[in-house]
């Protein structure tokens, strides 16, 4: 049964991740009083790319072609171990904790960077160096966030954290939790390349993620795109299911509840997409060196959570 639910979760992410990207694009266009593309546009793009021929730079090594398959597999693995449609661990749930999940995310990003360097394209190198210098600061923050969640729950398991926040009103309302959530939201913006950090066009000035996949085409590009939709969808799910709104996630094995929750979950993601769309339509892009100020503020939030913990804990109220 658990295995079946794992497969269900895998299909859910695989199928709906592009839809979330399509909906975000549509909301943004509607906010700009335009008609916008169909919400199924990402599916059309992916299926078109799968039918196209792949071109590989002559200087690249065989690793260049393998990298998209490896990163896609890593994201598939992550869909099996995070609390997406259930709040109890599925078959592969106990394999990794939060830090392990973070490492797998990091591994996928590192492989993507290596492949981008391997393409020997100047643009890819530019994107890699930008992404590496931002990642070097944002990933320790992610670690700090997980440590603070560990303080909250005495564990690093996302399922346990979800259960604790779902059941304990004290922790859910505590300032520690909300500071950590604010920090995670800022890191989420960095990781998913939303607007104050990254603008989505082919302007050289703002390129980070797109520059890295510049030399890819055909099926490999399709996998990269699909993989990054999945990554964004997973991170948004972690943000909503573990941090901000851990409620309604089924804690007991009940197939009907899980099916219902799949709709509720997508509704949660939809609300987050509206927030992202509003953000993307209202703020302008930071200059590259300003991104570090943004990352510094998110670090401060994660650290303030620790300060709150020390200030409030010894009084005995928590």
């Amino acid at each position, binding site marked *: 049964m658990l295995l079946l639910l794992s497969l269900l979760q895998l299909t859910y992410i695989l199928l709906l991740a592009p839809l979330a990207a399509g909906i975000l694009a549509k909301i943004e266009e509607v906010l700009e009083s335009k008609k916008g593309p169909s919400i199924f546009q990402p599916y059309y793009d992916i299926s078109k790319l799968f039918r196209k021929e792949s071109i590989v730079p002559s200087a690249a090594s065989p690793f260049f072609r393998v990298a998209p398959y490896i990163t896609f597999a890593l994201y598939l693995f992550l869909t099996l171990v995070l609390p997406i449609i259930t709040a109890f661990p599925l078959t592969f749930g106990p394999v990794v904790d939060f830090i392990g999940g973070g490492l797998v995310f990091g591994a996928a990003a590192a492989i993507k960077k290596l492949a981008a360097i391997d393409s020997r394209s100047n643009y890819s190198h530019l994107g890699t160096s930008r992404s590496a210098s931002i990642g070097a600061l944002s990933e320790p923050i992610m670690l700090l966030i997980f440590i603070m969640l560990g303080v909250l729950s005495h564990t690093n398991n996302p399922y346990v954290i979800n259960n604790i926040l779902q059941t304990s009103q004290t922790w859910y309302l505590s*300032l520690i939790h909300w*500071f950590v959530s604010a920090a995670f939201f800022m890191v989420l913006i960095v990781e998913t390349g939303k607007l104050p950090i990254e603008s989505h066009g082919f302007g050289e000035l703002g390129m980070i993620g797109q520059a890295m996949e510049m030399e890819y085409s055909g099926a490999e590009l399709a996998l990269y795109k699909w993989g990054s939709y999945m990554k964004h969808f997973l991170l948004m799910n972690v943000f909503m299911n573990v941090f901000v709104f851990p409620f309604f996630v089924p804690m007991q094995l009940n197939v009907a509840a899980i099916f219902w929750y799949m709709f509720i979950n997508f509704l949660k993601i939809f609300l987050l997409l509206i927030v992202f769309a509003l953000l993307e339509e209202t703020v302008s892009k930071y200059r590259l060196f300003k991104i570090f*100020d943004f990352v510094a503020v998110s670090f*401060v939030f994660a650290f303030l959570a620790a300060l709150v913990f020390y200030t409030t804990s010894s009084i005995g109220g928590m």
Partner: protein
Amino acid sequence: MHSLDSIYLLLGFVEIALVIFIQWQLYTINIIRTFSIGSFLMAAFFLVAGLVSKEVYILTLAFLTAVARGWFIPRFLVKTLKRETWREREVKPVLGVASSIIGSLLFAILGYLIYSLALQPYMSTNLAAVPIALMLQGAFLIISRSNTIAQLIGYLVMENAMYMFGYIFPELPFIVEAGIVLDVLGIVMISGIIIRLREDSLQNGDSEFNELRG
């Protein structure tokens, strides 16, 4: 924990986060507005405290805070800006923005350490950690900026911290608390006049004093 104490800590940490936000911003108008929001929050806290304890003098303090710090001082500072308000910003901060944000955090931690080493044994609650941290952060805001208005806001943040500190000692007489609220007014008015006079006398010529322009 007493529920008012919880609200006090909540307010304190929101104020700390607001100071960090001020440290992040280079546009003067954002700095002034953030300070105004912080002051209104403080007034709201005193309003709640006054309603809970049914003391008229705390309610008066809430009213004075809202009027003097939330409304009048920010408005007065905006009026002293000479150019269009949205344009006014600090061109070259003394310290880089990212490092000054981290610096502000370190001062907050230092504040907590000072409190826990020196005061904690004598206190029944941890409330005092917050104003000490806030005070050090305000001082850091002053030394990390060369823009006069940002420095003035840093001073006001320190004053706010003092004011919050006053709440911990409930026996403090009304005249002292009201004095803390109102003595800033004079300082801000005089600084505003000096800022204006200096700008008028330095109208032409790019001198090094331009850095200090408010």
